C-alpha cells in the first residue's frame, strides 16, 4: 500500500516540477505555434494525472528485499559507482578485475575463486573486445 502511495507522491511532485520547469523554458527568437514549452507541459500534466490512481487506489506492496539483501544491492551499487570513477584512472583491466571480483564474491563465490573469476572476466573482455575487435577501452598507467 505505502509503496504505491510513495510512488504516486514522487511522480506527482516530479510532474508538477516538470511543468514548472517547462513554464520557465526560455523562448527563442524562432517561434512556431507549438513553441518549446507546450509539449513538455502536456507530458508533465500526464505524469500528474497518472500519479493520482496509485495515490488513491494503491496496489498491494511488492515483496521488498530483506535488510540483508538491501545491503547487498547497495553494495553492488557502490561497486558500480566506484568502478565508473576509477576506470579512467586505473585503466580497464585492473578496474574491471576488482569490480568483477567484488560482484562475484557477493553473489556467493569463495574469495579466492572470485579473484580468479574477476581477473578472468577482465582479461577475457580485454582480449575479445580490444585485441580482436579493436574497441578502445580505458587506458590506465599500466597501459591496459
Amino acid at each position, binding site marked *: 500500500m505505502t*509503496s*504505491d502511495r510513495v*510512488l504516486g507522491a514522487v*511522480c506527482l511532485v516530479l*510532474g508538477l516540477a*516538470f511543468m514548472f*520547469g517547462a513554464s520557465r*523554458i*526560455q*523562448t*527563442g527568437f*524562432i*517561434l*512556431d*505555434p*507549438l*513553441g*518549446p514549452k507546450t*509539449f*513538455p507541459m502536456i*507530458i508533465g500534466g*500526464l*505524469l500528474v*494525472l*497518472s*500519479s493520482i*490512481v*496509485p495515490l488513491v487506489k494503491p*496496489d498491494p506492496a*511488492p515483496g521488498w*528485499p530483506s535488510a540483508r539483501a538491501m545491503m*547487498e*544491492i547497495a553494495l*553492488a*551499487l557502490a561497486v*558500480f*559507482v566506484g*568502478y*565508473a570513477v576509477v*576506470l579512467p584512472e586505473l585503466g580497464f583491466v585492473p578496474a*574491471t578485475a576488482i*569490480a*568483477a*571480483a567484488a*560482484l*562475484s564474491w557477493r*553473489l*556467493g*563465490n569463495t574469495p579466492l575463486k572470485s579473484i580468479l*573469476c574477476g581477473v578472468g*572476466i*577482465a582479461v*577475457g*573482455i580485454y582480449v575479445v*573486445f580490444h585485441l580482436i*575487435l*579493436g*574497441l*578502445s*577501452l580505458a587506458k590506465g598507467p599500466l597501459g591496459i
Partner: protein
Amino acid sequence: MDTLALLAQGFAVALTPENLALAFLGCFLGTIIGALPGLGPSNGVAILIPLAFTLGLPATPALILLTSVYYGAMYGGRISSILLNIPGDEPALMTTLDGYPMARQGKAGEALALSGVSSFVGSFFATCGLVLLAPVLVKLALLFGPAEYFALFTLAFATLGGISSRNQSKSAMAAAIGLGLAMIGIDGSTGTQRFTFGEIHLLEGIDFLVAIVGLFAISEVFLFLEHRGADAAVGVSLGRITVPLATLAKTWMTMVRSTVLGFVAGVLPGAGASLGSFIAYTFEKRLVDKAGTFGSGDPRGVAAPEAGNNAAAGGALVPMLSLGVPGSGTTAVLLAMLLALNITPGPLLFQNNPDVVWGLIAALFIANFMLLLMNIPMVGLFVRVLMVPPHILMPAVAMISFVGIYSISGSTFDLMLMIGFGALGYVLRKLDVPLVPIILGILLGNQMEDNLRRALTISNGEWSALVASPLSIGIWSLAVVGFVAPLVFGKVVQAKMSATVRRAAAEADPD
C-alpha cells in the same frame, strides 16, 4: 511480383560470405543469450547494440548481426523453459507447461527438437506474412500526415500495456517518464535548452542506449542479487534429440493453426508475443485436447506456444518496419537498434532504402534456416551454457554492459547515468511499473513532438487539426479503445492466464 524482385535483391545483399558469417555469429550468440536464465532477447540485444555500433560495421551488416541475435534469443528462450521449468523470457512461459513434464519423462531431447521445428515453422511463415503485409501497410502509411502520425504514436503508447495490462495508470506514468526524459537537451527546431540544468553532458539529450542498457541489464543484476542462489541448474539427461515422424504428423496442424493465430496477435497493437503464445496454447487445448493430456507432457502443448510466440515475434515486425511504431517490448529494442544505426523505419525507408529493408527481411529468412540447422545438432552445447553459475555470469554481463556504454562516448557521466537508470529500473520493476513505455518514450519523444509541431504549423495553431481527417479520427478512437479495454478486461485476461499456468502446473506436479 514487384515484392518478389525486391526480395531477390535483398537475398543478393544478405548472401555475401561476410553477411552469412555475421548471421551465423548472431544466431549462435543469440541462442546462448536466450538460453541463459535472466537474459531475454531485449536484454541481450540491448547490451550488444552499443558494441555493434562502435565496431563501425556498416548499417546492413550490423542489422543482420543484431536481428540474428534477436531471432536466436527467441529460439534460445525455450531451452531453459523445457529443461529447468524457468522461462528464459516471458513468451516462453507457456512452453514450460508441457515442455518441462516432457523433460521429466526423459524426453527432453525430443521436446527441444520439436520446439525447434515449431519455432522454425512459426517464424518462417510469419516472415512470409511480413513480406506480403508490410508493403500494403506502407501504401496506407503514405497517406499519413503529421496529425495522423501524432495520433499513431499516441496509439502505440495507449496499447503498449496490452490487453492483459494490470494497471493502466502505471503504463501512462511510464510513458510520461520516458517522454519527459526525451525532452532533455537542446530543442531541435527552436534551439532552446530544456531541462539541462547547465550540464554540458545533457545538451545533446540522454542517449537512449544508456537508458536501455541501464534499465534492462543493470537492473537485472540487482534483481539477481536480491534472489541470489535461488535457481541453480541441475543436470538433465536429454535423451534422443530428434523428433519421431509420428510426432510431427500429429503436431503439424497444431503448428499451422498456432502460426496463424500468433501472427495476427503480433500484428495487432497491444498484443505481442506473450499473448500470441497464450492464445495459441489455449485455442489448441480447447480444440484437440480430448484426452486431457495437455499440461502433462503433450507434444502439441509444446508445439502450439512455440509456433505461436515465434509467429507473433515476426508479426510484430510489420507495424515496426512499415509505420516505425513498435507494438511490443522486443520490437521497441529493435527500433532502438535501427535508430542507433541512423535508420528511421517507416514508409520512407521502404521507398528510399529498399536494400536495407529487403536485406533485413532476407536476413530473417536466412537466420531462420541457420537456427533450425544449428539448434538440433548443437543443443547439447547450449544446454551446457545453462550450467554457468550466476556468480560468473552476472559480473560478466555487468562488465560487458559497462564496456558497451563506455565505448560510445568514453565519458564517466554516461556510466553514472547508466547506473542511475539501473537503480531506477530495479525500483520500478519492483513496483510493477512497465519499463517498455519508458524506452519507447525516450525513443519516440522528439519525433512525436516534431509531428505535433508540424501539424500545428500547417493548421496555424488550430488544435482541431489533430482530429480533422477520418484517418486520424479512426486512429484516435482505436487509441482510446486500446487504453480503456484493459481497464475492463485486463483483470479477466490476467486471471485466466495465471489460472491456466497454475492449473497445468498443479496437474503436472501433484505433490
